[in-house]
C-alpha cells in the first residue's frame, strides 16, 4: 500500500512533468523541490508549480539488457539522461526506438506511457517516458 500512496502522491509530477520554479532565481526543478538549493531561505514561500515542456535532448544513455521483470517485454531498452529545454536534467526511458538509433544530442519529447502494474489485479502505474522528436 505504501507504493500505491507514493505513486498517487506523485502522479501530477509523473503524469504532467510538474516541477517547481524558484521565484527568487528562476531556476526550475524536477522532481519538485520545496526549497531552492541555491537560494535556500530566500526561496521559502516562493517555489511555484511549473509544468515542463517535455522537449529536450539526450545527454547520455545506457542500454538495459538485464531488465527488471516488469520490463521483460521491452528489453533491450534505452534509459537516458535527458537535458530538458526548460533546464532540468531527468532520467527517462526512450521508447519506440531500436537501441542503435540512439545518439547523444538527439532531440526527444515526452510521451505518456504505462510504467508498471501491481500484478494482475493491482493498480496500473503511468508516467512520462520519451521518444525521438
Amino acid at each position, binding site marked *: 500500500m505504501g507504493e500505491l500512496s507514493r505513486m498517487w502522491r506523485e*502522479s*501530477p509530477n509523473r*503524469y*504532467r512533468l510538474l516541477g517547481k520554479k524558484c521565484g527568487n532565481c528562476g531556476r526550475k526543478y524536477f522532481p519538485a523541490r520545496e526549497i531552492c538549493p541555491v537560494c535556500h531561505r530566500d526561496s521559502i514561500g516562493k517555489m511555484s508549480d511549473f*509544468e515542463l515542456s517535455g522537449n529536450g535532448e539526450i545527454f547520455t544513455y545506457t542500454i538495459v539488457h538485464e531488465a527488471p*521483470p*516488469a520490463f*521483460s*517485454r*521491452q528489453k533491450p531498452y534505452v534509459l537516458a539522461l535527458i537535458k530538458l529545454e526548460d533546464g532540468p536534467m531527468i532520467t527517462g526511458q526512450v*521508447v*519506440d526506438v531500436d537501441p542503435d538509433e540512439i545518439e547523444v544530442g538527439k532531440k526527444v519529447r515526452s*510521451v*505518456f*506511457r*504505462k*510504467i508498471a*502494474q501491481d*500484478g*494482475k489485479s493491482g493498480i*496500473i502505474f*503511468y508516467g512520462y*517516458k520519451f521518444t525521438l522528436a
Partner: protein
Amino acid sequence: MEKSGIVSYGSYIPKYRIKPDEIARIWGEDPENIRNGIYILSKSVPAPDEDVATISVEAARTALQRGGLKGSEIEAMYIGSESHPYAVKPTATIVSSAIGTNFDLFSADYEFACKAGTAGMQNVLAMVKSGMIRMGMAIGSDTSQGAPGDVLEYSASAGGTAMIIGRENVAAEIKATLSVTSDTPDFWRREGQPYPTHGERFTGEPAYFKHVVSAGKKMMEKMKTKPEDYDYAVFHQPNGKFPMRAAKMLGFNEEQYKEGLLTPLIGNTYSGAMMVGLSAILDVAKDGDRILAVSFGSGAGSDAFHIEVNSEIEKLHSRGAITVRKMLEKTKFLDYGMYAKFKKKLVLGDDVE
C-alpha cells in the same frame, strides 16, 4: 443561433505495424485472400507500454495543442472504448489528471462497441448546447482484441481520437446528429473473456450496412441534402471494404470517402475508427466544406453527424499539431513473434507482470 461543434481535435496511432501476410503465414491462410477479402494492408499494434489511457492522453494533448487550449478549460471528459484498462476505474480519471483538468469535471467512460466515442461526442455536444458546460472533450480509443487465428486478428488494431466540442471558436459546426439502435447479435464479448465473438451471418447486412446506411439516409433527409452536397464522407471502418460499399450504397464517390478511409493502413481502431477518419479529413478541410460522418457500434447502432467547416479551421492548421497522415509516415513493422509478445499473447508468470 450560436454555433456548437468541434473546437479542436487530435489523434494518436501507435508506431508499430504488422502486415496481414505475416499473420496469414502463421495460420496457414492465403494472404492474397485476406488482403482482397478485407482490404487491409497493415494494422497498428500498441507497444507493450501503451493502452487506452496512454493513447487517449496523447490524442487529448494533440487536441489541446492544436486548439491553443489548456486542460483546465475542459469541463467534461467522456471516453468511449471496449478495451478500457480497468473493468472498474474510469480511464477518464487518468486522462483528465494527465492533461490537468480541474477538480470540477463531468466525466465517465462509455461502452458501445465501436461507437462509444461518438456517443461521447453527442453527450458533450448536448451539454454544450444546453449551457451546462462551455467546452468538453470526447475520446474514442481502443487497443482492440482479436483471438489468435480468428479473422479479427487481421484487423483489430489500436488508436484514438479526441474531439474538443464547444460553442466558442468552433472550427467545424455540428449542425445535426442522430442515432439508430437495435438489438442485433453481430459481435459481443462476455465479462471476463479476453476475446470477442462474432455472429458471422449478422456482421454485414443486418448489422453494419443496415445501421450505417439508415443513419446516413436519415441524416440527409433531416438536413434535406444529397450526397453531392458533401465534400467528404466518413464511415466506421471495420475493414477497408465495408465503408467503401456503404459509401456507394448511399451515393458517395471515391473522392468523397478516400481522405477519411484509413483502415487499409492502420486496421480497425474500433472506437477510434470513424473519429480518426474524421480527424484526417479535418486536417485538410477548408472553409465551407461539408462532412457526413457515420459511426457504427456492434450490438448494434450508428451515430450520424452533419458537420460544416468554417474559416476557424485555418487557425487549427496553423498551430503545427501533428496530422494523421504525418503520424503514418513513421512506422516500424513487426514479425508475428514480436507482435505476440507486444500484444501479450505470450503470457508471463504472475511474479513477472
